[in-house]
């Protein structure tokens, strides 16, 4: 667990942290430790899923996103709303109400990420013709899931589809179309993703599968929801607006992607602990009769993102209603095949394994450390109380072996030691009295 500095959107607000153990227990990759009375996030293990943001009662875990004011760094700014944004507005009849509202709060133009999802749907369907990709092919849309695979299931990386994410493809198209229409330079245009989660923010700064993100930043749904609401309520329908397909919009909820890409043989799983359970099955070759696997770190899919406002079940219902009212045209019909060559669809960097779980580069040294862990574990009480600052007694033993903790960080071992010392002092006192 060498603590390589990696960029993360999720970080700790030191002032607010009380050093409690709530986040310790809920981190799916055991990436948090409490040391010196406050939490620390281990960069090498954090996948930016946002579970700690959700669980912290003191709001000490925060996500760095761009402020709305940042969009003015560019001459022109384009908002690229995640379709999960539509789910935030109860009773929303048409997507363009939200798009027009985005212009009202300062964006020069808008481009639906669901249009990117349409293009990506078609690109993935074409890519699935390749039998050499091991089955099930795993979606790369949720960056937290891809990072989870890098840390905990590195041997499944060749299952992960090498097609760029919808927001990336959307940004490439949006920028190109905008520059053509307004006859301007690409660097005069800022593309900002309207994000439901910190993981998407992280991949914009520290890209996965590509050298550089097509996006310039991300503004969180939470930040602009309040500003958008009054505008969304007042909007009128625009008869000229050409929306994405309903399939692209449905990507915001779990199963939306699987249903668009491969309805006949797919599985969709949401919530990080269930994603882990399903990946265990893939690892054991129990799911290779399946063509496609969609995994979402958040319960309900992107509508459940840690930076959304609306309850994820309500948002899902809102989206379902919106989708039901849209024409049923599949991306195979809506997206011309020429789009797949006109814009870059494939990743240009492979997904690399993350070795953070490994105890040592040398097998024999790793085995020695594992045995030492076992010996230490036998001396620990097994309460998994978190008082030492590690999430469980097992991780505490691991932390000692890795040099991140010492045995006396365990208050139970400490108590026993004090008791033994006290007894010795009594003995000494009695001996010297004579």
């Amino acid at each position, binding site marked *: 667990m060498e603590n390589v500095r990696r960029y993360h959107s999720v970080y700790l607000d030191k002032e607010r942290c009380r050093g409690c153990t709530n986040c310790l227990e809920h981190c799916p990759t055991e990436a948090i430790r409490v040391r010196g009375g406050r939490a620390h996030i281990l960069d090498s293990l954090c996948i930016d899923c946002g579970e700690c943001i959700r669980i912290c009662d003191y709001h000490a875990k925060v996500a760095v996103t761009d402020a709305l004011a940042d969009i003015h760094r560019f001459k022109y700014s384009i908002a690229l709303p995640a379709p999960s944004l539509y789910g935030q507005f109860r009773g929303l009849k048409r997507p363009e109400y939200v798009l027009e509202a985005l212009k009202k709060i300062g964006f020069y133009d808008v481009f639906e990420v669901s249009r990117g999802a349409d293009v990506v749907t078609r690109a993935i369907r074409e890519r699935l013709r390749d039998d050499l990709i091991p089955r099930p092919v795993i979606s790369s849309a949720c960056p937290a899931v891809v990072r989870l695979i890098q840390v905990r299931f590195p041997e499944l990386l060749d299952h992960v589809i090498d097609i760029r994410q919808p927001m990336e493809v959307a940004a490439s198209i949006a920028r190109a179309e905008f520059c053509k229409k307004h006859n301007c330079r690409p660097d005069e245009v800022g593309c900002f993703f309207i994000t439901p989660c910190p993981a998407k923010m992280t991949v914009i700064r520290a890209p996965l599968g590509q050298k550089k993100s097509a996006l310039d930043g991300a503004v969180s749904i939470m930040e602009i929801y309040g500003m958008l609401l009054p505008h969304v309520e007042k909007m009128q329908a625009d008869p000229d607006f050409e929306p994405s397909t309903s399939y692209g919009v449905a990507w915001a909820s779990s199963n939306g992607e699987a249903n668009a890409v491969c309805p006949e043989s797919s599985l969709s799983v949401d919530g990080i602990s269930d994603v882990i359970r399903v990946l265990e099955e893939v690892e054991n*070759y*129990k799911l290779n009769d399946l063509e496609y696997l969609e995994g979402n770190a958040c319960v309900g899919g992107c509508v459940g993102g840690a930076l959304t406002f609306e309850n994820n079940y309500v948002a899902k219902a809102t989206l379902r209603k919106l989708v039901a009212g849209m024409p049923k045209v599949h991306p195979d019909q809506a997206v011309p095949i020429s789009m797949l060559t006109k814009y870059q669809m494939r990743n240009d960097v492979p997904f690399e394994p993350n070795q953070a779980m490994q*105890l040592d580069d040398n097998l024999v040294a790793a085995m020695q450390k594992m045995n030492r862990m076992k010996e230490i574990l036998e001396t620990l009480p097994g309460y998994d109380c978190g008082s030492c600052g590690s999430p469980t007694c097992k991780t505490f033993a691991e932390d000692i072996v890795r040099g991140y903790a010492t045995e006396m960080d365990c208050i139970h071992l400490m108590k026993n030691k004090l008791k033994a010392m006290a007894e010795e002092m009594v003995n000494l006192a009695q001996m010297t009295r004579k």
Partner: protein
Amino acid sequence: MEALIHEVYPVASADYTSAGHASADIKKKLKMLGVGGDVLRRVAVASYEVELNLVIHSQGGHLDLNVFPDRVELVSEDVGPGIPDLSLAMREGWSTANEEARSLGFGAGMGLPNMKRNADEFDIQSEVGKGTVIRMGFRLA
């Protein structure tokens, strides 16, 4: 040579709630040791199959993980009932799983053949009324 890592996992008969825990832990340990790729997945499949066999067919037993600098070894040992006809048991699709196991999706008769296919070395000894011992070896590259 003595194994540097020796781990014993007791497995109870018909305990479907804990089924898979031993093989999941074996997988995690190997990842911590830096064993990955093809070997990891073959051990994963074989350990899962052998663990499930203990749950479904045996009267209880244990699964051992032994790791040497150049190989991984899995040893499963149970207290019965033993397999009357080994060549039949090794046949793909042959299963004696009961209704409970089948209702949970097991009993396709692929357990033993799958183990044999995934291990570099495979040995099975069985005696009716006594029990079964399965030894599997996996070479580390």
